[in-house]
């Protein structure tokens, strides 16, 4: 081929590219285009898509485009770093909200909420606390969850326990765990009663706290937290943590018919309201009940932790008013109800949670009481919470394996995280 024919091909290729390429921003049909990133995937994503389509139909001046960034939440952080954020984002965990808020990359929502006549009172109090940082809301949410214990009634009966009377105190829980634990002839586990995990949760049950909002200080070594960890360690010692872990290696994955609770390898399991759907799907024959984690004397009754995805408007958004319009709608009563009903989550809006569709199902009614109660705890308003939570999990792991004592470990976490928090706060004060 000659030089000129190459040149002609090149020019044609350029023309084709130029014709195909139309920048999204320039496409003007009078509509405001919004991009919306979500972390949901699978069935949840399909329901989100349906809701977005409905919003677009009902709002002729706005076009929302939904994109799932499931499995790559780092992309969100990088988008913030590069300043090319979506207009609305629900791919942010409640754990991360304070960290984003202190960096000034989110739009505070109080002005919008006032203008639209919405208030924090619409939300469950624990959820609302988790959405605010330094007195201002930075996000809304459309789902929440709760934490409680489910138990296998058949195993309770066979172990000489009354299947209709669940443990009401910590001492009763310990006894039930002991009675329901069973061994094989060779001394390996056939089943264990309960494996306490998640110190963050149990510390709240024991009446502890992770952050002191009055003094603004890290409170990892709160005496009640230490007590909670000591209690967890007592299980590790009584049942031998290495044997428990070896036993856990034989567990099938939770969302299959061979999940350990479904096949009777665990008598009690700390889980959430999705258990109902799981039990129906994977273990329809197992008889089961549920109860809130029972506290020790001086602890908190009906404790649960709440969290989940938060909808935010990044500060770099160019169409804040329209973005709020969408956010307000997707976290409004109608959309929340539809979303929660189709994916089996708890609605964080009190009015929706009070509707018969939720109240007529005993487990949901119970889970809603927990999540909406005064002992529902979201992530504390600590900008370094993800790192802090990882340190707590590390301390828990070390304590459970008897590598150091609970008090010493939680003292170390307190010192380390206080330093980290001080440094973070100082960095944002000096700017």
């Amino acid at each position, binding site marked *: 081929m000659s030089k000129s024919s190459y040149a002609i091909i090149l020019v044609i290729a350029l023309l084709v590219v130029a014709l195909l390429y139309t920048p999204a921003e320039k496409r003007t049909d009078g509509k405001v285009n919004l991009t919306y990133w979500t972390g949901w995937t699978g069935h949840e994503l399909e329901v989100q898509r349906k809701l977005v389509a409905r919003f677009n139909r009902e709002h002729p001046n706005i076009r929302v485009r939904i994109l799932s960034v499931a499995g790559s939440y*780092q992309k969100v*952080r*990088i988008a*913030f*770093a590069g300043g090319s954020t979506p207009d609305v984002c629900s791919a942010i965990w409640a754990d991360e909200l304070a*960290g*984003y808020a202190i*960096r*000034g*990359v989110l739009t505070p929502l109080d002005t919008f909420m006032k203008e639209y006549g919405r208030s924090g009172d619409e939300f469950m109090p624990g959820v609302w606390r988790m959405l605010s940082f330094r007195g201002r809301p930075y996000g809304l949410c459309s789902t929440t969850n709760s934490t409680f214990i489910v138990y296998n009634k058949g195993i309770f009966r066979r172990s000489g326990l009354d299947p209709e009377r669940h443990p009401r105190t910590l001492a009763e829980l310990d006894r039930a765990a002991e009675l329901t634990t069973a061994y094989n002839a060779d001394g390996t586990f056939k089943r264990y009663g309960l494996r306490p995990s998640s110190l963050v949760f149990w510390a709240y049950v024991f009446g502890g706290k992770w952050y002191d909002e009055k003094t603004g200080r890290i409170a990892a070594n709160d005496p009640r937290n230490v007590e909670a960890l000591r209690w967890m360690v007592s299980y590790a010692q009584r049942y031998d943590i*290495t044997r428990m*872990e*070896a*036993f856990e*290696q*034989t567990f099938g994955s939770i969302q299959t018919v061979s999940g350990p609770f479904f096949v009777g390898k665990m008598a009690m399991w700390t889980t959430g309201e999705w258990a109902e759907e799981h039990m129906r799907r994977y273990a329809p024959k197992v008889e089961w009940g549920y109860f809130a984690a029972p506290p020790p004397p001086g602890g908190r009754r009906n404790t649960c932790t709440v969290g989940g995805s938060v909808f935010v408007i990044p500060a770099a958004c160019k169409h804040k008013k329209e973005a709020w319009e969408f956010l307000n709608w997707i976290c409004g009563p109608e959309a929340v109800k539809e979303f929660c009903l189709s994916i089996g989550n708890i609605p964080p809006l009190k009015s929706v949670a009070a509707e018969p569709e939720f109240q007529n199902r005993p487990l949901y009614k119970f889970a809603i009481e927990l999540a909406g109660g005064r002992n529902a705890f979201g992530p504390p308003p600590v900008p*370094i919470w*993800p*790192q802090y939570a*990882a340190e707590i999990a*590390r301390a828990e*792991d*070390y304590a459970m*394996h008897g*590598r150091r004592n609970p008090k010493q470990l939680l003292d170390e976490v307190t010192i*380390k995280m206080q*330093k980290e928090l001080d*440094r973070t706060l100082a*960095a*944002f004060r*000096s*700017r």
Partner: protein
Amino acid sequence: MRNMTRRQTSRLVKADLRNGLLFAAPWIAGFLCLTAYPIIASIYYSFCNFDAISPPHWVGMLNYRILVTEDELFWRSLWNTAYMIVFGLPVGLVSSLVLAFLLNLKVRGMAFYRTLYYLPSITPIVAASALWLWLLNPEIGLVNELIMTFGKMLHRLHLPAPAGPGWLIDPAWAKPALIFMGLWGAGGGMLIYLAGLQDVPEQLYEAADLDGASSWKKLWHITLPMLSPVIFFNLVMGLIGSFQYFTQVYVMTGGGPQDATLFYALHLFNNAFLNFKMGYASAMAWILFLITLACTLLVFKTSARWVYYPGELK
């Protein structure tokens, strides 16, 4: 060329240079923007408090000071990485060398065996790691199943029977488990050794045979010296690779149990992408670079004593 004047020649050279640079331009641009710039920027960030969202804020040596004086996981991860280099690297080097010797024998169907042993090293690490999670499962894994069968045989002979360890869930066994798993990828090094073995001149062996040298003598005085440049290459590459040990533990253990497999690169990654302490992670990266550089230089220094290049006078 003979008929060209000097000016013509220089014009040709210039044109060649221009064309060469033009052809390499995409790579040069990519290298400058995507490699050189981030590397240089990371020096600056290592002296900053930088979370990737807010602008970097100069803090001097603070990151380095915290690493060395406060971060016990920094030392832990450094120790874990050193363990892999001191114990894992020699095991890997020797096993692929032995494998290469075996696959250099003149046996029928050798091409098949070579392929067989090479295959695992081109399996994606993530897939291999997921597979090894199952193999090393202490309760239902194939490895402990074999140990148990072997144990039963010993038991019948009234010998003490070994019990399979907890492998990846036991802090004492997690690193040995990873070293053991690393043997799976010995095919990569094996291939390079094999190429080196084919290059050893046949006449050297013939001469040794005439002198009545034993197989051991031939190995020690001919094969190993002739292979030493290849061993040297594998050692340096293995050293650098070990300092960057990451994917396997990222997939399999996440650094656990109790930080037993928290390697330097994983700790760096966690700081950068979980805690978003980019400045801190940059400081870690530069410390790693300096350590790797020092170790590699050390190996190069000693190489004069044991690496033999044919044609070189000694």
